């Protein structure tokens, strides 16, 4: 994923916090946030994951005028029905199309992140390794390192995610 411009917006933070069931007013109440130690509405700890919204090529969002592999008239909108798995190699670890699942996620926070910041996002591949799983067959792990920098070019968050691809559905 490469995102040139990920503006940190109040409404987006409010919706993200709501979706996680987090009622903390630091995520929506300007007056509360303004008088707090951090001084403004800030991003929740995992918020940078929502950079996907600003990635024009993010594969796990339906795009205008393009086929989507979720169900419609048929269980899958992709040709052949099993198309969800077709894209798994290109899917980011956070996504997990088909047999790809998110195994690990790690964040390092270098600077505060809040409304008004504008991030740019770059990713690079990390290590890959394999393991034999009991239920899901051979497991292939791949690491991705993502750097989030602010409008001044300063590193704000570093993320390391590990995605795993399995041979079979691993419903626990």
């Amino acid at each position, binding site marked *: 994923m490469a995102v040139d411009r990920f503006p940190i917006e109040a409404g*987006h933070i409010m*919706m*993200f916090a*709501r*979706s*996680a*069931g*987090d009622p*903390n007013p*630091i995520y929506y109440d300007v007056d509360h946030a303004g008088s*707090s*130690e*951090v001084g403004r509405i*800030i991003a*929740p*700890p*995992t918020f940078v*994951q*929502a*950079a*996907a*919204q600003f*990635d024009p090529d*993010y594969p*796990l*969002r*339906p795009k205008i005028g393009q086929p989507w*592999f*979720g*169900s419609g008239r048929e*269980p*899958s909108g992709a040709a052949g*029905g*099993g198309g*969800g*798995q077709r894209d798994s190699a290109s899917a980011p670890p*956070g*996504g*997990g*199309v*088909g047999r790809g*699942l*998110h*195994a*690990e*996620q*790690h*964040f*390092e*926070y270098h600077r*505060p992140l809040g409304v008004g910041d504008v991030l740019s996002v770059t990713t690079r591949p990390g290590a890959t390794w394999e393991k034999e799983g009991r239920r899901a067959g051979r497991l292939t792990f791949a690491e991705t390192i993502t750097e989030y920098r602010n409008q001044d070019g300063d590193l704000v968050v570093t993320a*390391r995610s590990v995605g795993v691809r399995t041979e079979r*559905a691993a*419903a*626990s």
Partner: protein
Amino acid sequence: MALRARDLEVGAVFEEPVVEDLKRTQIVQYAGASGDYNPLHTDEVFATRVAGYPSVFAHGMLTMAMTGRMLTDFVGDGRLTGFGGRFTAQVWPGDTLVATATVAAVREQGTEHVAELHVRTVNQDGVEVFSGTATARLDP
């Protein structure tokens, strides 16, 4: 309000329920906010009939976001310096999750006081769904 190093002992535990009877709609709500609309999380027909799962299931990152709520409620806003872990089991609609932070160490790093935490989230059957660590800046 932030935690104070002098009040924090190794082994101290902070526990918080983060969701009760997780609804499919909350998973969809997280999809909308995060931008990850993977049908495995948002589309019961696809998840069951195409991908072969018993139902849709939560994004790992939703579990982590809910676990993060426990952490910020514990250490205060803007105090985390690190947070990470493994998704150790899937989270399904109907699950009830409790997130726990256990103080592993309290140390001074230069002029700052830092807490190292073990982080764990379990479901209603006691099955661990997320296991990791976090670090946070403390007041003295």
